[in-house]
């Protein structure tokens, strides 16, 4: 009963990403009109290949072709299922206006009864006195709250695999290579207003794999997920997970280096020393190649052996690859900062960073962001000093702070998690909102594109039924690039499902016995 959504923070349970995987098999159930409960098994079996292959036209036509009478629960299901396997792929919004809404910009306060004009997927205008251009598709925002699309700074969704956990250095592996249209889980995150994910490699290794930043363009081919132009990054990890202290070694299995926090530092310094040497060798080779006077002289030069592990680390050394470092305790964070300083790179973000509040000044001084949980604690020894005031206290001391999910579950309600920064430590409303929007964009180096409602930025927006921090707030609509990727009005809901079941008497009778 008590097994919980587990993510990076709880990797020791050996289930990183596992819980989400169950959700990945499935697909969205379309609003529809069939006896949803009756198709559960076949839907799962059909899997998501259908989602990807279905065009919008097919989706609509399919609905239209729905048989008028439902078959018996177990008869001929696939025929019915085909009508309902894909969400309509949203039309590209050429010109859209959200009118009369409360607009929480995340950068410039809140606009009451404001209008947002979206042109070709970008925010063209925002304000209280913005005229609605002729021909715009209107989304009536009366009584609604609009926020920037939520950015989850720590996710493990949409990836086929999370942890290449065999080596302590796996900087050569890339999440990008195993991205997939992740089925229902991505849709459910959209339904929580989330639009961008930082998909990180797991925390099994001190130097993990390369991350991928994606937009939740659910329903489009997998190539469409990638956030074009987002700076590349890499996952590092410290503490209990990489030390494997919570693993039970199988008989015959050997422990892996490093086993202590001292060993972790050694591993990092060794890796970056090798990376420096590798870079030096390449620089020498390049210089000689440049200095070569003849083609035969050039041909005689032998290039250094290419090393994919070190390539990524050289990019870190050169500031071209952002380091996102899983961490808990203050001491290990300080160690990482020292290593970064000694090798001349900034750690872009510390992830989890549950003791960040103890060394907030050091984080601020180093210019490292902090991406933390709202109130998780006590799940392992290194989370014992975690406090929910962490986010607010670090922000107070000048750190760029985000609150992340690290979970397919929390990613559905990051707005509620952000409000905890107000509850614990008294962050302002805008500061709390920034922790799931603009600050995340800054940490990922995509703040020119997303993170706030400003002219020129991508029209990635969440429309709430109430103030996003209010207890009964629900997402009504989620837009990415001005396209509606989630709309509660056309989404299959429990209420709808119950209604359908009631209408199908024989079916209900069998369900109810």
């Amino acid at each position: 009963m008590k097994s919980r959504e587990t993510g990076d923070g709880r990797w020791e349970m050996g289930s990183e990403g596992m819980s989400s995987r169950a959700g990945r098999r499935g697909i969205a159930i379309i609003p529809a009109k069939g006896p949803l409960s009756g198709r559960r098994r076949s839907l799962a079996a059909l899997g998501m290949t259908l989602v990807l292959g279905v065009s919008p036209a097919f989706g609509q036509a399919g609905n239209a072709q729905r048989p008028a009478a439902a078959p018996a629960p177990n008869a001929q299901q696939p025929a019915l299922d085909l009508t309902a396997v894909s969400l309509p792929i949203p039309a590209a919004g050429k010109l859209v206006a959200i009118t009369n809404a409360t607009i929480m910009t995340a950068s410039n306060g809140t606009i009451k009864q404001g209008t947002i004009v979206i042109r070709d997927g970008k925010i063209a205008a925002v304000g209280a006195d913005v005229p609605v251009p002729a021909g715009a598709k209107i989304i009536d925002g009366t009584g609604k709250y609009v926020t920037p699309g939520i950015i989850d700074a720590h996710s493990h969704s949409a990836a086929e695999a999370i942890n290449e956990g065999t080596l302590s250095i796996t900087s050569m592996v890339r999440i990008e290579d195993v991205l997939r249209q992740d089925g229902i889980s991505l849709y459910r995150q959209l339904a929580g207003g989330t639009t961008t994910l930082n998909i990180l490699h797991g925390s099994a290794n001190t130097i993990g794999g390369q991350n991928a930043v994606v937009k939740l363009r659910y329903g489009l081919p997998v190539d469409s997920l990638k956030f074009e132009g987002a700076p590349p990054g890499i996952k590092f990890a410290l503490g209990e997970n990489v030390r494997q202290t919570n693993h039970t070694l199988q008989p015959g299995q050997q422990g892996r280096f490093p086993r202590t926090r001292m060993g972790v530092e050694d591993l990092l310094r060794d890796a970056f020393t090798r990376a420096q040497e590798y870079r030096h060798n390449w620089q020498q080779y390049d210089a000689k190649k440049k200095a070569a006077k003849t083609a035969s002289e050039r041909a005689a030069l032998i290039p250094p052996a290419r090393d994919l592990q070190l390539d990524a680390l050289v990019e870190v050394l050169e500031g071209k690859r952002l380091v996102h470092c899983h961490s808990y305790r203050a001491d290990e964070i300080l160690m990482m900062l020292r290593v970064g300083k000694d090798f001349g790179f900034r750690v872009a973000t510390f992830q989890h960073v549950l003791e960040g509040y103890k060394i907030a000044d050091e984080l601020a001084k180093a210019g490292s962001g902090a991406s933390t949980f709202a109130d998780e604690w006590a799940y392992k020894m290194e989370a014992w000093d975690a406090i929910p005031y962490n986010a607010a206290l670090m922000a107070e001391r000048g750190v760029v702070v985000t609150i992340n999910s690290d979970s397919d579950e929390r990613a559905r309600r990051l707005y509620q998690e952000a409000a905890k920064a107000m509850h614990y430590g008294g962050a302002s409303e805008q500061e709390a909102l920034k922790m799931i929007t603009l600050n995340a964009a800054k940490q990922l180096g995509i703040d020119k594109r997303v993170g706030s409602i400003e002219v020129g930025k991508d029209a990635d927006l969440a429309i709430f039924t109430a103030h996003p921090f209010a207890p009964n707030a629900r997402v009504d609509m989620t837009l990415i690039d001005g396209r509606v990727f989630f709309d509660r009005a056309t989404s299959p809901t429990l209420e709808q499902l119950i209604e359908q079941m009631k209408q199908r008497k024989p079916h209900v009778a069998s369900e109810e016995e």
Partner: protein
Amino acid sequence: MNGNWEPGTGNRAPLPSRSRFLAALGMTLLASVAQAQAQTGTYVIRGGTVVPIVGRRIPSGTVVISGGKIQAVGANVQAPQGATVIDATGLFVYPGMIDSGTELGLTEIGSVPGSTDTREIGDFNPQDVALTAVNAHSELIPVTRVNGVTTVVTSATGALMSGTAALIDLWGWTPDEMAIKPRVAQVMSYPSSGGGGRGGGVGGRPQGDASETASRQVRAMRDFFADARAYADVKAKLAAGGSVPNAPRVNQAMESLVPAIRGEMPIIFDVNTIDQIRGVLTLADSFKLKVILRGPRDAWRVADTLAARGIPVIVGPTTQVPGTDDPYDAIYAQPGVLAKAGVKVAFQTSGASDVRDLPYNAALATAYGLDMDEAMKALTINPAQIFGVADRYGSLEPGKVANVIVTTGNPLDVRSNVKYLFIRGEQIPLTDRHTKLFEQFRARPKP
């Protein structure tokens, strides 16, 4: 307020009133005396919006607390002499919230086995008493209560029969002092052959033989109940002066099931899928059990049946992903569906370190159809009724135990804070491990 001795509770005093208990046992422990004295404090909370849960809200109301109990609630209440006055102008007064399923006090740090007592070896341990292992000084307890959760059900879970749960207030020097009902219910898990997303099966057995395992477990469970029924019958016969040849000697496991098999003690069934729910209903019919469903995903499918049969449902945690093929809002929307059908609903977090998030679990349900007032009931009077303590808990009414929170707003709203906290009429400091670390490091000088 009477000593609420349960059948078969052995020597545990439930301690509704500490002073009476101490007097009865003739104890003179200094610390306890000091606490007993604190309990006699008289408080007047006035000027706030009083939300008594039972009865209408009072815009500018007064709540009087004395002798550990609520003495008066109303718009025009005389303040007793010498009372400590708490100005609640602009604030809200609610009863303390109740979490209907936790492991609080039984675990400290999840990954440190030495700190957890949540799962005994073996499938059948109905004789295990959760209260035995409740660490009254767990750091998790103050962290929970400062957020307005004053009372919890705590127990081991995960076995087919995990033993009895305790209903405890989050205040007291010993487990006994915390207890409201030392043995409030048996906790059981109904076997699952998988499905419904997470959590299928008991004991993490491989999926392949899950179905076979489940049917074997159901059979074992039924056998166990049948034995308990026979044991209870023999016991009744002996008690009536009859003689039974080869009467059994005392069997702890059977003994512990007697109250449940007689329908005097409810059984909390941790379930998930519709198959498990149906299984529980069948078991309840076979053995005339008083059952409570906890944690189901599929209860909405049989909401009307559950309402008609008066079976309460403890929902949650709502912070889960729905089953693979369920609508995206299934978990959030289920509590509203159940409440509308007339099912008595309460909430659980099912955790320990996150019990403080109880009101936010309910908040998610209000966004998807659960009425806000119903949600507050599901955190207060409903669990009090489900666990048979509604005469003492769950609302702000004269004579009830003074578990009272004074908040800056709706407790379901994450932005609200608890300003004052009373448990059994004692004002509890709003400090915990987290506030201490916060203050400590907030005061750290710039390096």
